[in-house]
């Protein structure tokens, strides 16, 4: 990196030149000093931590991409599975609901089911991958010092990369069914954004919990399934009888999924309560998840 200074160096005398070089060199060395001390509060200094996190963002992105590549390595359909998987899943659930309902479900409902199922999968994939992220990063954790938050973050990115093509599938269906195309559709952006915030917090909680309780990933598929059934995915939110409403209300994903279905799928205006409750759940979970994860992450190297 000597080149940018070349002009400056030429215009000053030899003494100053040496001086400048020395100052540059000192500055570079000083920038590379690390001090490791005990953290008294259990949390590392927030500023430097966030800076490191930002500096290594490429790592999370690359890890997310690599995970995606590895998932369908060696299959005939390869990346086509990114579309095929959610389509098949939506088909299976639609068949189930149609039979249970005695055939009363129309194509509009199929669009609702698809939209909400894909948004739900964004969260459940983040949590599932997140739970494994720290454990499977064991070797890297034992060998390199970096903010461990990058590992669950990469899981959320993987989940999001799998989510994006499903949105394209939904868009095609939306247009094909002649569902309303208006400004209400734009609510999808903040609602999915909040879903991502929630997913990040939940992934960090799952990643930390898995280190201490290795049975978690065994329970997780069942927890996820019950969570799906208590979310307004296989039915519309307003179809639930009043006495079961409390169960729905306790579900962090309820406001986000209901909001998504009503605005994007049904073309209604957004109920502000959904937005407020969704945002509260999302940022609350992120805060809890981040504190839980970051306060424990220095222990991971000993626990793996």
């Amino acid at each position: 990196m000597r080149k940018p200074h070349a002009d400056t160096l030429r215009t000053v005398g030899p003494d100053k030149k040496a001086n400048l070089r020395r100052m540059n060199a000192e500055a570079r060395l000083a920038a590379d000093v690390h001090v490791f001390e005990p953290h008294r509060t259990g949390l590392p200094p927030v500023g430097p931590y966030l800076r490191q996190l930002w500096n290594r963002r490429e790592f999370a992105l690359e890890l997310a991409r690599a995970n995606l590549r590895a998932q369908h390595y060696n299959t005939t359909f390869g990346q086509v599975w990114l579309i095929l998987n959610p389509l098949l899943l939506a088909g299976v659930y639609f068949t189930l609901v149609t039979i249970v309902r005695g055939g009363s479900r129309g194509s509009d409902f199929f669009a609702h089911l698809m939209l909400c199922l894909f948004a739900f999968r964004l969260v459940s994939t983040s949590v599932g991958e997140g739970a494994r992220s720290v454990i499977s990063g064991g070797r890297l954790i034992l060998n390199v010092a970096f903010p461990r938050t990058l590992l669950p973050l990469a899981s959320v990115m993987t989940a999001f990369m799998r989510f994006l093509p499903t949105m394209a599938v939904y868009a095609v269906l939306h247009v094909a069914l002649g569902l309303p195309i208006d400004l209400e559709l734009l609510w999808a952006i903040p609602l999915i954004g909040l879903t991502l915030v929630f997913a990040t917090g939940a992934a960090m909680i799952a990643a930390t919990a898995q280190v201490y309780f290795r049975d978690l990933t065994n329970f997780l598929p069942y927890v996820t399934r019950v969570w799906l059934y208590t979310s307004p995915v296989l039915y519309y939110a307003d179809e639930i009888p009043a006495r079961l409403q409390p169960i729905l209300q306790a579900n962090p994903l309820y406001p986000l999924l209901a909001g998504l279905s009503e605005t994007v799928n049904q073309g209604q205006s957004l109920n502000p309560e959904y937005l407020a409750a969704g945002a509260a759940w999302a940022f609350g979970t992120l805060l809890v998840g981040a504190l839980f994860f970051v306060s424990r992450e220095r222990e991971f190297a000993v626990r793996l």
Partner: protein
Amino acid sequence: MLSASDDRAVVSEALDGQPQDHAVRVQNLSVTYRTTIEKRPTLRRTLVRLGRRQRVVREIRAVQNVSFDVAHRTVLGIIGVNGAGKSTLMRTVAGILPPNEGRIEVHGRISTLLALGIGFKSELSGRDNVILGGLAAGLTREQLAAKYEEIAEFAELGSFMDSPMRTYSAGMYGRLAFSVAVHMEPDILLVDEALSVGDARFKHKSFDKMRELCAQARTIFVVSHALQSLQTLCNEIIWMHDGEIALRGEPGEVIERYRRFLDVGDKDIALEED
């Protein structure tokens, strides 16, 4: 590209032969872990223990009140019996384990070869793992792209670089890990128990590479049980015992005392070397 070692040369030149600054300074370092006593926790034992209100954690004082300075250009060997705290010390210097007490100051960029850290995702290719490891260590994509060919060539893996790492042999793993660690342009290289990776020929090559790094004014920490190798490679040795520094000094002397402590003859050492 200027590495920090060039910078250091410039700085020391300018300081007119004043003594060089230290690369690593460890002050009153103590590291204590808490681990569970049970190797395989079972539900039954957990319930029994909960009933009796027993505690399961045990404190291990892996490093106790250790202080030392290491000057730039030093090749420091660390020896000691298993469980002496060598690996813990290395991990703490690398910033992987937090110290419980004391302070560590590290001047320069660290590269580690501790637990064969490369290949942490065995379903990914060697290429992916090299890039991921490098990015995690804080290198930029451009730096990695510039280094990649050199890394692949040094590891001699050929087309295996694009195969999933689960298809690699142990030697191939080791070669790639070593190649990555030494090509990261570290100012300080930490190597743990990885002196003899690959076959005899590659071992030679890795030794040469380490000497080359020393010549470039890098600082190297090596943990090993291969005493003869350490004697030729290092210019200083720390002998650790029970988490403390038992002896520090010139390689010949420390190794001699350590051998006497272990009570093994030269014949056994020679066997250990391979």
